[in-house]
Structure formats: C-alpha cells, structure tokens
C-alpha cells in the first residue's frame, strides 16, 4: 500500500526526484569493484528511497585503514569495518542508534529484537547493526563454513571414501599424486595452505578444528565442571601432530613449496587451475575458486570433510548460524542527516526489500509454487549461476555484502537466501555437485558433518582486546611468533622438527596469559548476560 503510493509519487515527480537524490558516503571494510552505476535492484532501491550511495570499498589492509581513518578525523557518513568496528566506537566515531531506531526505524527494531541484548555495549547503547539478523529461525547451507577440502577427482578415483582423520586425508592425496604427477601438463599440487598476512588463520586455526571445535579463534573454551574455561591449543599435542604431518608432507613434496610465500591472489589462482588436490580453509575464502571450477572444470571441485586428528575425537565443527554481534554498520558523528541514514537502513532490512535483493522480482527472477514456496526455473537458475551477472547486472553484492540483511527462514517459511531454500539446495546444485552428494547419500555438503552444538557465548573470537592495552600488544606479539615459527615447523628437515617445536613452545607460551584473562572475562559475561 505504502509502497504503491510511494511508487506513484516517484513516477509523478520523475525527473525532479532524480536531481534531488540524497547522498551518503559509505565505507565498507571489504574489497569489491566499484558499483557499476546501475543494476536491476539498485535502480529500484534508488527510485524508492531517493538515496544515492557514494561507496568506498576497502583497498589494502583494513586494520591500517581504520587506524588512519580514526587518526585523520575524516569519517564517512556510514561505516562498517568488520572486526575493527569496535575500535571506531572506542574512538567516539559512532553515534548511539537507540533513539534513532526507536523513532524512525520500526523495521530494524522489530527484526533485530532477538539480538537486542547482544548489541548493547557496556554503556547500554547500540552503535552498529550486524550484517545479518536472524528474525525467524536459522537455515542450513550447501557448504559448511569450514573444512578440509579435497578434490572430487581424488574421491572419485578412490571410490568415494568418507574422510575422517588427518592420516586418511593425506593418504588419499599422496596416492593420487603418485599416480598422477601432472595435471593438464603442469605438476600436481598435493596440498596448499594459505598464509598471506591476516589470512594466515587458515593455517594456524586448524588444530582447534582437528580437536573437533568450530571456529573459536585463537583459544578454545573447554567445558570444565559447568564452566567454559579458556584454554590454549597452539601448543597442544594435536597442534604438534598437525604440524608434524605437514612437515612430513612438505618433505615428501606433497605440500606446495611456495605455500608460505604466496599471496591470496596466487592461492585462488592455483586452486582454480584444478591442479590442487587439497586445502584447509573457511569456505568463503575459497568460494571464488570453487565457482570458477564449477564453470570451467567441474570435475575438480572441492568437497569438504570434517577431518579430525584421530578416531577418538567427535567433531562439531559446524556452527549454528549466529549473528556477529560485535561488528556491523554504524553511523558516524560526521553524518549530517542521521535520520535519513537510519531510514535508508530501515528500508533495506524490510522483508520485501530483502526478498528483492536475494530473490529478485517475482515472475522474472523467481516463481511461487502452489504451497507458497519460492523456486527458480532452469533459465532463472542459469542466470543466477553466473557470478558476473549476479554482481554487475543484478547487483546483489552491492546491497547484501556489508549492509544489514536478513538470514534464515522468513515469515512464510521461505528462506531469505535462495541458496539455503531446503527443497532447493539439492535441486539447484550443479550436476557435478549432485554426483558427489548422491555418492555419499546426502542432500547438502553440510550433511557430511555432525549436528552443531549449542554454546551460548559462541564464538570466542568476537571478543576483542581493548585497543593498545597490554593484552592487545601481547596478541600482536603472539601472532608474530606464530607466523614466524609455523613455516619453520613445516619446512624444516624431519630430524630438526622436535627442536623447532621446543623453541616454538618456549617462545609462544609466555605470550598468552593476558589475552586469556580478557577472553575468560568476556565468556563469563556472555554466559551470564546473553
């Protein structure tokens, strides 16, 4: 109703409105090519809101960018800076949103209601809106969030084994490399591990997953007599066994010689060449390579497994979709029209806008069946399988990434994300993906994993060290030691491994105490207040 009135107004005032667009400068802490200027959903959103965004996407290192932004005192109108959003709040850059939301943003208030306690900072104010709200209930996705990925070729040749332990995983890869020393004329790469600057967690986070944990960050909270106690895993026996295995594989030539000096672009390039047989990572870090493989070389796609250190560990690596309450989009003190800004965000988060951004226009980009469930025809599906079209013509990324959005089930039982529509996960998969799912008798790759466990505080890594505090300095030091030793652990000669490991434990152990205190306090606080 209101919408149609608005539309009429827009058409009537036509050219006039085009000239009187409100402009907001937004900084987003992730890289994306500049907005193409006009996209299917972007044009609709612009017409309905009368807002033009001047977008600034991340170039280079986010931590540096945020530090410099704060030091310079020159802020955009709206900002989202991933893990470093809280630094902006500490520096007094963000304005409290409580009153703005109360008066001007009924949809935000309604849709974030479930998460409201988590969003309140110690002073009782809300400073940012997390990029996802789950108002009606969680969903599952086609791919789990992390895993040991292995090339489909390897599984197929070995007769679709279920990969459970690290030894089995590398055994399969080793056998395949022996039989096929080259792929497409170039040497086969058995295993790649990503180690590029801040992304090095793809290598150093692994021990906790081998112990069965989902992604907690640098430490794991262990349940001891009804209390979650923060413990270190970097020096655990599991970590030792993991690095020793990588060391063995490196010396056998299975792990790529270049793996510790390549940057992220080179990593993606190698993965998408189809020469790589295995890598551990969080799925979003290799998603772009997987999409290229699906298009160009579908037999070489990667399949995730919840690999653990030995048969005794029971894994629960999958996480329940959660709201990243410690980061999100905020409005800065430089914004001249905070009411306009919050109204724009309120418009974006509405269910019908979300449906537009995720599904598109009914009849054009999706259909509704007799039960009210959404689906896409084969032609529509083909459109959405082309990443270039989705990004540059449809425009999904430009209104979904970084902006507040909805996730999970909607009010009618459909999913906000087409990818997670339960009856569509399997049927909308690529034939190559279906072949793997059929072989393992699952309907999504997430089904290869155990059910997640409910942990109220989850996850630990969203607790941040106070800026510039001794714990913060200790954290940087610890990561320095970790980043210095890990390549040495893997690349040293097998007979030197024990010595390097002893030095590593000696150097890293004294650099944990202060951080563990901060994490423990945070966990205890969350268990009590969330």
């Amino acid at each position: 109703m209101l919408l149609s009135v608005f539309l009429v107004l827009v058409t009537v005032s036509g050219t006039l409105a085009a000239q009187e667009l409100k402009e907001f400068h937004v900084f987003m802490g992730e890289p994306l090519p500049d907005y193409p200027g006009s996209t299917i959903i972007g044009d609709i959103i612009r017409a309905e809101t009368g807002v033009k965004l001047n977008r600034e996407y991340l170039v280079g290192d986010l931590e540096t960018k945020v530090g410099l932004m704060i030091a310079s005192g020159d802020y955009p109108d709206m900002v989202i800076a991933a893990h470093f959003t809280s630094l902006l709040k500490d520096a007094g850059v963000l304005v409290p949103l409580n009153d703005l939301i109360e008066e001007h943003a009924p949809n935000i208030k309604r849709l974030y209601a479930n998460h409201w306690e988590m969003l309140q900072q110690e002073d009782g104010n809300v400073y940012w809106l997390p990029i996802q709200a789950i108002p009606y209930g969680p969903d599952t996705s086609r791919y789990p969030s992390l895993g040991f990925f292995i090339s489909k070729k390897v599984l197929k040749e070995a007769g679709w084994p279920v990969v459970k332990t690290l030894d089995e995983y590398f055994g399969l890869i080793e056998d395949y490399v022996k039989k096929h020393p080259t792929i497409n004329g170039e040497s086969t790469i058995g295993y790649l591990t990503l180690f590029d600057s801040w992304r090095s967690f793809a290598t150093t986070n692994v021990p906790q997953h081998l112990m069965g944990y989902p992604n907690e960050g640098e430490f794991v909270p262990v349940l001891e007599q009804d209390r979650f106690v923060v413990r270190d895993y970097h020096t655990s026996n599991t970590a030792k066994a993991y690095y020793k295995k990588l060391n063995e594989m490196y010396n056998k030539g299975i792990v790529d010689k270049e793996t510790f000096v390549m940057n992220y672009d080179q990593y993606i390039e190698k993965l998408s060449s189809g020469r790589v047989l295995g890598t551990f990572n969080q799925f979003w870090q290799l998603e772009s390579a997987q999409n290229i493989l699906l298009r160009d070389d579908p037999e070489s796609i990667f399949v995730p497994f919840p690999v653990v250190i030995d048969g005794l560990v029971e894994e629960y690596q999958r996480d329940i979709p959660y709201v990243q309450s410690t980061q999100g989009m905020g409005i800065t003190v430089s914004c001249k029209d905070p009411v306009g800004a919050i109204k724009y965000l309120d418009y974006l988060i509405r269910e019908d806008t979300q449906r537009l951004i995720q599904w598109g226009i009914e009849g054009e980009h999706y259909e509704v069946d007799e039960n009210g469930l959404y689906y896409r025809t084969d032609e529509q599906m083909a459109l959405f399988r082309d990443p270039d079209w989705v990004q540059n013509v449809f425009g999904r990324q430009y209104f979904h990434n970084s902006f507040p959005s909805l996730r999970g089930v909607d009010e009618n039982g459909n999913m906000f994300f087409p990818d997670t529509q339960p009856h569509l996960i399997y049927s909308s998969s690529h034939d190559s993906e279906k072949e793997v799912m059929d072989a393992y008798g699952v309907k999504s790759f997430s089904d290869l994993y155990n059910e997640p466990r409910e942990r109220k505080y989850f996850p630990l890594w969203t607790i941040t060290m106070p800026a510039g505090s001794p714990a913060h300095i200790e954290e940087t030091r610890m990561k320095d030691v970790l980043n210095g030793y890990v390549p040495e652990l893997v690349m040293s000669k097998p007979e030197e491994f024990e010595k390097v490991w002893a030095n590593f434990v000696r150097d890293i152990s004294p650099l944990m105490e202060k951080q563990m205190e901060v994490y423990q306090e945070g966990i205890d606080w969350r268990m009590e207040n969330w």
Partner: protein
Amino acid sequence: MNTSTSLAVKPNSFWQKLKQQKALVLMSVPFLIHVIIFKYIPIWGWVLAFQNYWPGKSVFQQTWVGLDNFRDLFNDPVFYQVLRNTLAMSIIKLVMGTVASIALALIINEVRFMPFKKAAQTISYLPHFISWVVAANLVRDALSTDGGIVNDVLLSLNIIKEPIMFLGIPKLFWWIIGISHVWKEVGWGAIIYLAAIAGIDPSLYEAAVIDGAGRLKQMWYITLPSIRPTISILLIMNMGYLLSSGFEQQYLLQNGRVIDYARVFTIYELDYGIKMMRYSFATAVGIFRSVVSLVLVFAANQFAKRFGQEGLM
C-alpha cells in the same frame, strides 16, 4: 672565495648586503614560509609522544605520561630487531645503489653510439616510474619456484638442481631488497651523475689523451674525481634517510616466514602503533628516528669536511 672579502667589511655590512640582494631574499621568502609551515609547525605534534593520546579528545585533555612511551620502546625486544633490519637494508641499498648508479653513469657516458646510449638510458630508468605495488608482483613472479625466470635460468644452466624459494629464506631478504632496489632505481640514480659528468671541462680529457691516458685511466683520474663533490653531497643527504629505508618495498615483499628480517621502522610503527591506536607510541618511534637521523647527517657532514670535501653546511 668571496669569504675573504666579507671578512674585511664593516659591522653594518649585513644590512648593506641585504639591500644589495633584496630581490634574491624576496624570492626565497615563499620557500622559507613553506618550510616553516610544513616542516617546523608539525613538530608541535611531538607532544603526543609524552601523552597517552586517545582520539576524540583535544590535545590538552589527554593524560600526560612523561617518558613512558620511550621506555616501552627501548624495552621492546622487537625494537632492536627493527633497528638492525632498518640499518642493514638502508646501508645495503645505499652502497649498492650508489655504486651501481655511478658505474652505469660511467659506462653510459663512454658509449659513443647515440641511439644505443639513449635506449640504454631510457630502459634503465623506466622501472623507476612503476609503483612498488606492481614492481613487487614482478619481483615475486621472477623469484617464484613455480616457473619464475630466475629459477628457470639457474636450473637450465645446471647451477642448481632444485628451485630455490628465494622469498622464503630469511637471510636472503635484505639482499633481495637491495637488488630489487638497484633494478628499480639504478637508471634514475645515474641521471644526476651523468649531468655532473656532462659538466666536466672537455679540455681535461684532451690533456689526458695527450699524456697518453686510455679510457680507463681517464675515468679513474678525471671523471671520478670531478664528480666526487656530487657523490659526497648525495651521500650526506642520504644519511638522513638511513632510518627510513622505505616502506612499500618491504611491506609488499615480506611474508610471515621472513618477518624477523623484513620488519623496518615504518612497518613497526604501523603494526605496533597505528593499527593498535597507540598513536603516542608511534610518535615516540618517529621522534627517535628523527633525532638519530639528524645526528647521522651532522656526523657525515663533519666526516666529509675532514676529508677535504665541501660539506652541506
């Protein structure tokens, strides 16, 4: 030379001279203002180093901490590593860069075939105009173990049996920085020496030829001594940059494996200062660098004067 005359003039000569050179003095005023605004006024920001600066408050509302930031700095084991790396890489770059530039200038100067001379000069200074972001990727590709040109050449010449992961060997990092610096800057650096060589009186060479000096002797006895003032002035000026040694080059070529040898002051200020919002600490590091640089410049100046060269001051 005119010092001898100015020594003898009367006390009010300053004003006379000022009047005499009025036009020159007036012309230099804008530059003086520029220097004051951009080089002296910002020094005021050094007060941050003695505070625990937190953005969003004015400078007068900050807490004063005295010398705490400097104490933190000198107690930090990473600091000494950073100092070593910065000095080592600066000296390697300075020595290799200067020697290579002079050598290139001498060689180009001897070439008599003009088209080749021009082409050689252009090709050698072109890399200077590439930003390090691009150049670092070129270096990475060239040194790659996966089809990099350096390894390919060494392999095909049977000098090595296995490709070497150059960027992964900590001790090699300084030299990679030095050599890639030479590759990028050698032609650019040679220009100033070429200009100095062009200013040498040709009659000196003619006299030398009559005395029977060959090409090499001419270079050694005429060209090099004639450009000695240029070399020493450039060296003195570069002394001031010993504790800077660049940022992009190291930042873009480093990786976790070699960080112990790659971290220089600028990266240290970023990682342990600005990224953690320790602006005061970063300022303290900056002050330390400035003071040491000043001492180095003065020392080099004295050194040059003692060895009979004209100094800067």
